[in-house]
């Protein structure tokens, strides 16, 4: 039987969302760098900022899951 709480399922879904989001940002950044290698520094910085924002959203929900447990 399943033991544990539904908050664990929620946390897993949050992980899926975060992985998809940050993966998408990374893929766009790599594509942009491939098209314009001279803009690498700016693109990398933007990628890090957006990744941190997406991760922030994911961690809000992770904290809610922790509270719900």
């Amino acid at each position, binding site marked *: 039987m399943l033991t544990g709480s539904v908050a664990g399922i929620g946390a897993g879904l949050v992980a899926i969302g975060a992985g998809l989001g940050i993966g998408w940002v990374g893929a766009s950044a790599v594509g942009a760098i491939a098209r314009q290698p001279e803009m690498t520094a700016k693109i990398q910085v933007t990628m*890090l*900022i957006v990744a*941190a*924002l997406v*991760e*922030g959203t994911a*961690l*809000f929900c*992770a*904290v809610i899951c922790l509270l719900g447990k």
Partner: protein
Amino acid sequence: MQSNSMDAVNLVQAKSEAVQAYMMHHVMDSPTWAWLPSFHMAVPFGLKVHAVMMLAVALLLIVVLGRLGRRKQAVPTGLLNAVEFFAKYIRDEMVVPFLGEKDGHKMAPMFCTLFFFILIMNLAGLIPCLYTATSNLGVTAALASITLGFMIFGAMYRNGVVAFFKGFAPPGIPGPMLIMIVPIEIISMFIRAMALAIRLFANMLAGHLVIYSLLGMIVMFGFYAAPALLGALGIYLLEVFVSFLQAYIFTLLSAIFIGERYHPAH
């Protein structure tokens, strides 16, 4: 046979509860400082652990950065070189692009303070036997309130109260939509500040919880948990990177939000 396996499962479950209790006790604020499992010290003056860490980091920064800033050399060397690298980056790439030249140069020390304070608090939590003050929602909420204070009262002081409220209406929006957009903009201002606090808090808390959980596997499963040590080491290195990144993101977003209120309608 059946009772043997149930005993093993119950034993692991009991151990996992003990590990969870240990984790909760070591991650939350408490009036006793756990230097070692066998040596707990009561924190004096009625303070708690995270407050002591904040005071210690603030004192360290005041002493070290104060003495560094007083050196009279044209070309910086050593630690001053590293600090100037960060300070120059903060002023030229993070503050001035969003706040303009005049405001940027005036407010750059504030953002440098935020950045270095958050960075050293994050890093100090990674030293064994010390605690992470930024893994406390109260601490991060206080830091975010500094940003919110500048967003509201700084903009009111700089532009005037009427211009502050007028800044919530983006240009070129027809009348009926303004009634919907202005409350959303006002609420989003508060939500962004709250998000700053929660982002930093959750990142720091989650990192430490993951390290504790991986190391707790050693208690639960004994020798079979040896690969978890590699995982814990990897997450520990990631935590160093995340400390820098979260300090950078907090300062950058603060600069962006304050710049939006200081120079509205762009």
